[in-house]
């Protein structure tokens, strides 16, 4: 199947791509992601070898752009329960709440949820790796939940 001129490809897929992005990201963010999706498609277009599955191809690009966009907006995947809190807890509340945690876990939880720092910065603050910081915060939160349910 011949590869159509980009204009035709774009006209045929722009609405469905935009629909997907709005569903994933909300209208405002979807507009930037829309442009990024078709710019990526345009860059790759000369390397396409046939015109089959163009819709699946561009939808995959759109999915990838939404994932990148979400990552950019929220630097790290969050712990689900705490993420659903609308406002950050106050510093004092956090200090009280975490008083019984081991020091490293406490620091990680406070820096993450009190100061909203990304894990790489928490890692440097604690002299450990990004992953270790993430684990410390996560096990701190698990410990708090266990305590809460007792």
């Amino acid at each position: 199947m011949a590869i159509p001129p980009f204009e035709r490809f774009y006209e045929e897929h722009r609405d469905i791509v935009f629909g997907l992005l709005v569903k994933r990201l909300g209208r405002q963010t979807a507009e930037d992601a829309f442009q990024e999706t078709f710019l990526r498609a345009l860059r790759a277009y000369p390397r396409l070898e046939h015109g089959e599955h163009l819709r699946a191809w561009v939808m995959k690009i759109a999915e990838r752009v939404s994932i990148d966009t979400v990552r950019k907006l929220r630097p790290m995947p969050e712990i689900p329960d705490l993420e659903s809190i609308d406002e950050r807890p106050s510093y004092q509340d956090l200090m009280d709440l975490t008083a019984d945690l081991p020091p490293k876990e406490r620091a990680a939880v406070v820096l993450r949820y009190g100061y909203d720092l990304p894990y790489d910065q928490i890692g440097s603050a604690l002299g450990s790796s990004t992953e270790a910081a993430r684990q410390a915060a996560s096990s701190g939160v698990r410990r708090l939940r266990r305590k809460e349910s007792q």
Partner: protein
Amino acid sequence: MNVTPELDRRFREAAAGAGLLDVAYDLADSPVGELLVATTERGLCRIAFEPDEVVDELSQTFGRRVLRVPSRLDTVRRQLDEYFEGRREAFELEPDIAVLPEFQRRVLDELARVPYGQLTTYGALAGRIGQPRAARAVGGALNRNPVPIVLPCHRVVGANGSLTGYAGGLHIKRRLLELERALLAG
């Protein structure tokens, strides 16, 4: 969900601005019907009287990244408007004819020197490129002129003064020559 005209416009601008296009084109109204006008980074590459068929042709000739970007054709559209209003005799546009065979490029280079409102013949043009017997080949080269109007193949007529032929149709050739007052009335 429908893309808004503003978002659509922004994407087209961004694509052209990033230098990612092989060809940008637009449609332009004119007294001889709707024209498709197209440009590469190097210059004006196409003016067509039948817009519908031309987008595929552009894609095959210059590359698939063909997109309608009206702002890129502002200058072309403006100069054509001025021409059709009788306010412009010479175009300040650089045609991009690099993809054409050498013979055709020589014919078109020579054609570009035929002044506004004047007629020449296929034979005379053939003589000017040093191939006086190639009148027929010159006719063929002009018939495939990718940028008519700007490269004025309408100013070339048969040895007996007959209009002979024109890719867009003889009525358009006649109209352009009338506009330039190159035809005697009656």
